[in-house]
């Protein structure tokens, strides 16, 4: 299904980028955003541009659209759209082409839609801007498009404002806008990155479907090899502004020739379906035993008007043995992050018990719980927001232990040791967080959590903000830490592939409830609940990984062909 070659009729090239060089203003970390990049987009094909953050893939897309910021310009090379060079064209000419011949969909559909305009008005605006049709014909066309992108109840949807729509629905609206003028080329810049895995699968399917039906050419920018395997005809791999490899999807995925591509593919977490060899033998008593945990959010005032009640965690129960990792997976809004925050008492629970080393911490007050805080630590999702920008790394690491009475000198010593342990050099101690990359910051976050030698670590989406190659390193580090210290871990993630890499057991959460709980082999190969089955089937690139891990093939293939 993935890389079936297109018919011969599509051999002609719609978009050719030749030796494109885009220079950055002086003082940036490198001189060129992209340098000598060449590739071709053929008629009726999907070209995936893949690379990690900073590889120049979005700059390339923006250069084609003529949407580069003023301080960045194309310094040499050509962008030929059906034989016409776009570089150096007047802004008016480019504006005319945008939307009509080339259109684009963006990563974040919420910020790309105007919050003050109805869905219908926004789609019509695209046509009106190019002087196409009459108000009446535009209205009819907008309705057609809403049907085409598979939105439920188009007449109702037409009058809705973006905030009422889910992420997937918004992305469908973006696609409808992009399709309004039947463009020859659709540029999709990470259109599914902000979406849940099941929604992502639907949107990928929709793009593929529309592309086939209309014979459109699609340039699809992504960082996820799973998505590439799902959708691409041909692939361009970019690294630090250079195009390092290109070819058909099959060729690049199956037999990558460049070292970077090989490393990138190897780093992609794939479903193993095999159970992890636990770090420690099963102990008789669990370190954490959660029973019937409930957390409900109330918004609005009880005094004025109606109170809105949203159940976030609804009767969760599980236990965790020492030295084991429990994965908590689920889509956004499933309550997995709330669960993590309740466990560490950053949020108060409404009912249920959290037995930590046999003692119920759910009912403890903040003051009573403070002496226990060192034993339960957390690794946060966003390595940029979780470190105080005004503190040095040393202060960030030592402030906690010092507050708990550890002498300053000893705390500093421990901090330096830990930094070395998580793979950072000695100079790190006196630097500020902004001097580090995302992966390095996450190492600092891990070091902070380890300062107290905790018994329980809660990792809340600890690797989801990182590039795949960094992700693999951090997962390895966490595994190593667990094997050395015997700490138990609750690993919260939306990515089932990541969960399959590191967890001994996995709990699948759906609308605040744990719908399935078991070892990875059960969850991925023989899921009991319908929701888990749906979730596993939606994992992009499932065929690719099932081809790799023999034995899991039959079950996975069975789901993904639905």
């Amino acid at each position, binding site marked *: 299904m993935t890389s079936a070659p297109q018919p011969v009729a599509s051999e002609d090239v719609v978009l050719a980028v030749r030796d494109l060089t885009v220079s950055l*203003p002086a003082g940036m970390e490198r001189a060129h955003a992209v340098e000598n990049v060449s590739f071709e987009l053929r008629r009726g094909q999907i070209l995936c541009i893949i690379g990690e953050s900073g590889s120049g893939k979005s700059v390339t897309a923006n250069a084609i659209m003529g949407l580069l*910021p003023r*301080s960045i310009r194309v310094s040499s090379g050509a962008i030929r759209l059906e034989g016409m060079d776009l570089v150096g064209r007047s802004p008016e000419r480019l504006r005319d082409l945008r939307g009509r011949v080339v259109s684009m969909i963006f990563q974040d559909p919420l910020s790309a839609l105007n919050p003050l305009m109805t869905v219908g008005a926004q789609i019509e605006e695209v046509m009106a801007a190019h002087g196409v049709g009459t108000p009446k014909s535009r209205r009819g066309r907008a309705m057609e498009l809403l049907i085409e992108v598979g939105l439920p109840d188009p007449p109702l949807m037409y009058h809705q404002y973006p905030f009422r729509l889910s992420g997937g629905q918004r992305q469908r609206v973006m696609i409808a806008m992009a399709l309004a003028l039947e463009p020859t080329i659709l540029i999709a810049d990470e259109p599914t990155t902000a979406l849940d895995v099941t929604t992502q699968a639907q949107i990928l399917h929709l793009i593929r479907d529309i592309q086939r039906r209309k014979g459109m050419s699609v340039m699809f920018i992504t960082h996820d090899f799973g998505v590439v395997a799902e959708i691409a005809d041909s692939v361009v791999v970019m690294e630090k502004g250079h195009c390092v490899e290109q070819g058909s999807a099959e060729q690049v995925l199956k037999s990558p020739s460049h070292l970077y591509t090989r490393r990138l593919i190897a780093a992609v977490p794939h479903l193993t379906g095999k159970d992890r060899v636990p770090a420690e033998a099963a102990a008789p008593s669990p370190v954490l035993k959660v029973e019937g945990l409930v957390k409900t959010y109330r918004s609005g005032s009880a005094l004025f008007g109606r109170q809105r009640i949203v159940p976030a965690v609804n009767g969760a129960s599980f236990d965790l043995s020492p030295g084991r990792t429990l994965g908590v997976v689920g889509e956004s809004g499933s309550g997995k992050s709330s669960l993590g*925050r309740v466990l*560490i008492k*950053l949020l108060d629970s409404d009912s249920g018990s959290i037995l930590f080393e046999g003692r119920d911490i759910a009912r403890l007050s903040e003051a009573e719980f*403070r002496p226990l*805080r*060192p034993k339960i*630590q*957390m690794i*946060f*999702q*966003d390595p940029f*927001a*979780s*470190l*105080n*920008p*005004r*503190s040095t790394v040393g202060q960030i690491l030592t*402030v*906690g*232990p010092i*507050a*708990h009475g550890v002498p300053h000198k000893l705390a500093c010593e421990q901090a330096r040791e830990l930094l070395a342990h998580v*793979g*950072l*050099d000695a*100079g*790190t101690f006196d*630097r*500020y967080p*902004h*001097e*580090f*990359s995302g*992966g*390095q910051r996450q*190492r600092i*976050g891990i070091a*902070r959590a380890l*300062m*107290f030698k905790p018994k329980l670590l809660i990792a809340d989406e600890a690797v989801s903000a990182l590039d795949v190659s960094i992700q693999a*390193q951090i997962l390895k*580090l966490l595994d190593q830490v667990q094997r050395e210290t015997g700490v138990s871990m609750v690993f919260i993630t939306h990515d089932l592939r990541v969960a399959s890499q590191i967890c001994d057991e996995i709990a699948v959460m759906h609308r605040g409830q744990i719908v399935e709980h078991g070892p990875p082999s059960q969850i991925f190969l023989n899921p009991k609940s319908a929701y888990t089955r749906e979730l596993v089937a939606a994992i992009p690139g499932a065929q690719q990984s099932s081809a790799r891990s023999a034995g899991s093939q039959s079950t996975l293939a069975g789901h993904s062909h639905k």
Partner: protein
Amino acid sequence: MTTIVAHAAPTRWWHSRAVNRFMRHHLALLGIAMITLLVLACAIGPYALPYDSLHIDLRARFAPPLAGNHYLGTDPLGRDLAVRLLMAGRVSLAVGFSAMLLSTLIGTLVGVTAGYRGGWIGAALMRTVDGFLSYPSIFLVLALAATLRPNPVMITVIIAVTSWMETARIVEAEVRSLREREFVQAARMVGLSRAHIMFREILPNAMGPIIVAASLAVARAILLEAYISFLGYGIQPPLPSWGNMLNGAQQYLASAPWLAIIPGAAITIAVTSFNFIGDGLRDALDVRNDNF
């Protein structure tokens, strides 16, 4: 393979970029220059000039500026206007700065507490702010000044007490958004006390808006002091302030206009300079103003 050497950052990005943006703001630089000049003149000037600010010379009444030894002329009692202007500057600027410090302190304390605690404590504090704001501060100032003994310290306190609300609101909004950031959650995770989180973790991150508000507060405080002194409830003669110099000049507006123009110009220069600095700081600390 696992050891990663931190790539050397060329400079402290935050500092250098903000300073760069500030340097591009020419009016703010002009403001800094004017204030520096004014402060230096007030500090050194009275020693350099040959007269005392209280020295009465009835033979030299109403001397116009640039006539004889009195560079800026003399007042109805023959006192040298230049010395009086600089001595008044000491009082006015000192009152302005101290009132700013005090009001920023109050505003920050209230703002951080209300922003971080939230709930009924936050609501009570912010409703107090609303209460103060809904009362016209000029009347409040005048009412207080009329009942309390007006001396520079009292005037400072009165101005501070009626102008901390703006800072409180800015800080409260800033802290409320910072409170949700993960580094604050992390600080709670490692078991830091509430006071430590509020003042050591959050406050340094809210300094930008506080500094901007403070620079604008100086301008406001100088203006308020001039206002109440002009009305006669502020700094009392013979101690000069820019405001009471204006008050004394009223009746001679037609015959000796320089008596009003000179202190008026001093107030204008000081207030606009502080406003320029405030604008410059606001732009410099706002990352969105980077042209990249």
